């Protein structure tokens, strides 16, 4: 039974991916990741000396700042920041540079669905560009449950809005 997606993809098909690194001149590492029309820019600064007060000084600290495309940062952005921080903490080797802070800044350029996975991929590419020691790479994909009961991968914004579960 074939399900009809608006842009004609099969349920398991992803949108075309594009990634480029080293695009920002002043950042120590940078990457842009786009899946179809969703585009995210990530910049990495660091490691810089000093950690924040509540963080463990024996490990490196990772700080994530999420800038939405328009408007001010709100609760949704804070939630994205926390999810990204936990993900990146699990792939970075934190014991190599103790008492340092690495800042990762995510800028949403265009949002057409599947935003958080696109940002995770962009952040991982930017960390590799900056030379931060990583245990392994992180890859993420978005899947959602459509109203007809099918699981579809890499939804666009229209599909996300009508889906039952994301």
């Amino acid at each position, binding site marked *: 039974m074939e399900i009809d997606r608006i842009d004609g993809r099969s349920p398991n098909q992803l949108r075309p991916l594009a990634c480029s690194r080293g695009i920002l001149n002043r950042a120590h590492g940078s990457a842009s990741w786009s899946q179809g029309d969703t585009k995210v820019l990530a910049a990495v600064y*660091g490691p810089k*000396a000093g950690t924040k007060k509540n963080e463990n000084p024996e490990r490196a600290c990772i700080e994530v700042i999420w800038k939405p495309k328009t408007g001010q940062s709100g609760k949704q952005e804070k939630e994205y920041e926390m999810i990204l921080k936990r993900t990146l903490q699990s792939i970075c080797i934190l014991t190599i540079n*103790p*008492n340092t802070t690495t800042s990762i800044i995510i800028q949403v350029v265009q949002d057409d669905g599947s935003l958080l996975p696109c940002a995770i991929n962009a952040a991982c590419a930017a960390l*590799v560009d*900056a030379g931060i*020691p*990583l245990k*392994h790479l992180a*890859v993420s994909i978005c899947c959602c449950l459509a109203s007809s009961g099918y699981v579809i991968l890499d939804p666009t914004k229209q599909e996300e809005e009508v889906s039952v579960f994301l």
Partner: protein
Amino acid sequence: MEDKSSGSPSSLVDQPVVPGDVVLDLSTMPNQTIKLGGGLRQDADVITVMKAGRLRFLKPNKYWVESSQKRYVPRVDDNVLGIVVDTKADNFLVDIKGPAIAFLPVLAFEGGTRRNIPKFEAGTLVYVRVVKANPGTNPELSCTDASGKAAEFGPLKDGFMFECSTGLSRMMLSSPTCPVLEEFGKKLSFEVAVGLNGRVWVNAASPATVIVVSNAIMKSESLSSTQQRIMARKLLEKVQ
């Protein structure tokens, strides 16, 4: 995400590798001493890659990942260009583009005693050697070589400093001489100091020479040696 483990060590040598690639499986190679350089780490029985780059191997047993970044990881016996940030009682605080700020002891100069401490203001560019570089502590520097002589270390006056990547600095210091510097050296006279932390200082009699040499070095990062020679000759024709 499972990666395929390469049983034979030579399959990834000289290839681009990304973090998480398994380079060696130690359980298949008993009783061997392997020396690991930068970019690799040991995880129980396997050696995995930490930084993306090209894997290199030197006989008999040295492996390392060659990568080029904008930030610098301090290592002992590297010659770097630092900028003085602050002065304390016993040390100058020097920024060398690494994760921690470095200390330059006030007495680490040739013939340095408490009476003739040099006065460096904030912003002075110094050519120094890394003496101590441990992961948790601030690196220590010195303006003398191993035997205590000055040997060209110290503050650099005049000239122009620009930043580049660590890979470009290593290429400029490699032997045989980097093609760009060789071509320019045939026609122009200039001084250059290359820091392994990604900073380069150029000085010459006229500003035009300084500008031509700096721009050529900045552009030569992605060019092969023949392309570098062609670019250098074209720029020289325009200058003269």
